[in-house]
């Protein structure tokens, strides 16, 4: 199966990269941009039978390795 993990930075956490990129876009004349946020998507190919089982395992991977619980929230989507 394919698992798609969306990892988003918690809103209250500072995002220097976003700030810097907005500055750069304004320099380029794209003054209409008011905010930029950077998130990550991790696509996994996983062997497994039931969507439930795979979801549970992948959520485990996120907690243990893929996401940083202090700074990020994550969402797992499975397409069988």
């Amino acid at each position: 199966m394919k698992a798609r993990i969306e990892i988003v930075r918690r809103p209250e956490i500072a995002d220097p990269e976003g700030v810097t990129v907005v500055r750069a876009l304004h320099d380029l004349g794209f003054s209409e941009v008011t905010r930029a946020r950077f998130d990550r998507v991790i696509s996994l190919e996983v062997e497994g039978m039931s969507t439930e089982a795979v979801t549970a395992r992948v959520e485990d991977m996120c907690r243990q390795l893929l996401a940083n619980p202090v700074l990020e929230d994550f969402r797992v989507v499975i397409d069988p």
Partner: protein
Amino acid sequence: MIIEDEETAPVETSSVHHQLGLTDDEFDRIRAILGRDPRPAELAMYSVMWSEHCSYKSSRVHLKRFPTAAPWVVVGPGENAGVIDIGDGWYVALRIESHNHPSFVEPYQGAATGVGGIIRDIFTMGARPIALWDSIRFGPLGQARNRYLLKGVVAGIAGYGNAVGVPTVGGEIGFAEHYSNNPLVNVMCLGLMRREQLVLARSGPEGTRAILLGAGTGRDGIGGASILASTSFDAASSQKRPSVQVGDPFEEKKLIEACLELYERDLVIGVQDLGAAGLSCAASEPVAKSGMGIDLDLDLVHVRESGMNAVELLMSESQERMMAFVDPSRVEAVLAVAAKWEIDAAVVGTVRDHGNVLVNHGGETVAEVPAVSLVTGAPNYERPLGEPQWMEDLWSNTVKFVAQPAIATALLQMLDDPALASKAWAFEQYDHMLFLNTVIGPGHDASLLRVKGTDKGLALSVDGDGRLCYLDPRRGGARLVYEGALQVALAGARPLAVVDNLNFGNPEKPEVMWQLRETIEGISEACEALGMPVIGGNVSLYNETNGIDIYPTPVVGVLGLAAPLPSPPPRLDRALAGMELWLFGTEWAINLAGSSFELVTFAHIGGRPTAPDPTAGRAALQAGQMLAQEGVAPVLHDVSSGGLALAVAEVAIASGVGVTVRYSDWRHLFCEDPHRFIAAVSPDAAIRVAGLAAQASIPAAPIGEFGGNEIVFDRNGIRAALDLGVATSTWSQALSRRLV
């Protein structure tokens, strides 16, 4: 946390101050100072300024003990960093800081913001930060959590230090179960400046403008570092997570360049960095030190998030911010410099002679308190202290050796110990060459930096210890100072000054306070014996998790001046086949208490470590410095953790040549008693070397030769040998192989 619209209403409920970490007595003290109940913003300011982290209320009475004076000291403890005069019109600034608890909560960002903070302390003084050292300690690498913390901390130091453009040229990594839930992350920073550029945290006279430079203020670390570093750790600490701060090395790099331009063009009267306690500290400290007050308008502070109230604005620990105090006629020029470097700046206040910190927000006065009361009004605790009842048992708990252990096996075991093995896995992640100053970088004893435009060099070492100090805090603390000074001398430098970082447990326990007092006593005695002042440092208390305190762990940085810079300087990797191996210092030392040998081979910690000997210590410094300066010893290396056996093995591995060591009592090989070092000497220099040793009146003798491809220990013909290739690969991979 008090987040209410009625910001001007006094705080009725006294429970609020508990949430902020203030005791009832402290709350009453605040009431007495104000003659009324504090408003929320006022209580918030007192809570951060009076926190252990910012006020040193438990340690100040003991810190007084440190010797702090010497002719070359320009600025001692009390400012953001100590400053030393190295001649030729050059000053150096030095400081060490800890970021232990934040690094446990989020290792990468905790370590990164620790680096950012110590760098700000240096360029706040007017100096360009030119080098960093990291001293970090973790639990055993057998546990996944500890591997995660080590990887995260090293990546954080690299991620921030490399990008901000300050090389990390040395450091140390230690391990012990006690640090499993309480890693130690201490970082030392060195700065260099022309004499004229020195700046202090002063506010200047009535009418001076306060300009806030750098990152926008957000809700980062509300009740963070200062509170985090001032209370113990437990399960609940996970709730402190939302206060994690994120570092932005890019913003700090721009801030460094902007501030250095301000100093060069003499546009500021004083500056103060925003660290723990953020705006509360940066607004009050400089004015208090100048006997002034300030009108502060929070509506003018540039923010990252909207809708922040006064409490949040005053307590925010957003990184990469500086407060500059500027004469009104210079304000435009300062704002122009900020604009050039693409950093935000805002005039947020005006210095007043009313002596108060008067804070306005939304057109209302939210705080009006005497500046001095925030900075020096905190109580000074003479906390009860007492020698732990376990000391006697510890001292009598020694190993009785019935037979001689297998020496080669014991050495191989030590070479495979992550605490003793190569740290290349870590320091190759650090830029350690930027600025073209690094003559001797990581992987040797002291770091040696050249000072361009002079014939001088700066030698620095940083060493921490928990085990010896647990066995005897006074002797352990003193030996750290002697060890650091010796390493600096072996680079050809004269030790000039010390910074210290005191990582201890819960100060409300008499045993911990005793350890703290004894350590400070030991460090002070050694500094006095060697004529070195303490010019700055940091105290980190409450390093305790679930009631278990860490080992008492002081970290000592020693700064030395090499005039001239020895060329070529001694290095570990310059031994050649045919050279003699010399040992300097008392050869008959046999005390194994607290040694790596007893720990690694017997998992034993006990006995009483040998006390340092000032006379022997001074002799070792003199001899080492002369040998390095005359260039008669291509290799000089101190004997410390792992004893003579490991010291010799490190030289053989670094130089890629075998060695034979002659000994009489096997315990000489593993003893770690102080004031001893080894050298590689070419036979034709032997007479001169012996002469210098005699001149310094230090025992010295050849105890072996370099050559072959084995590390051999020889007792009247009975040989124990370890293949150099095996030793090298074991030592090189001991750390990295445990981290994959």
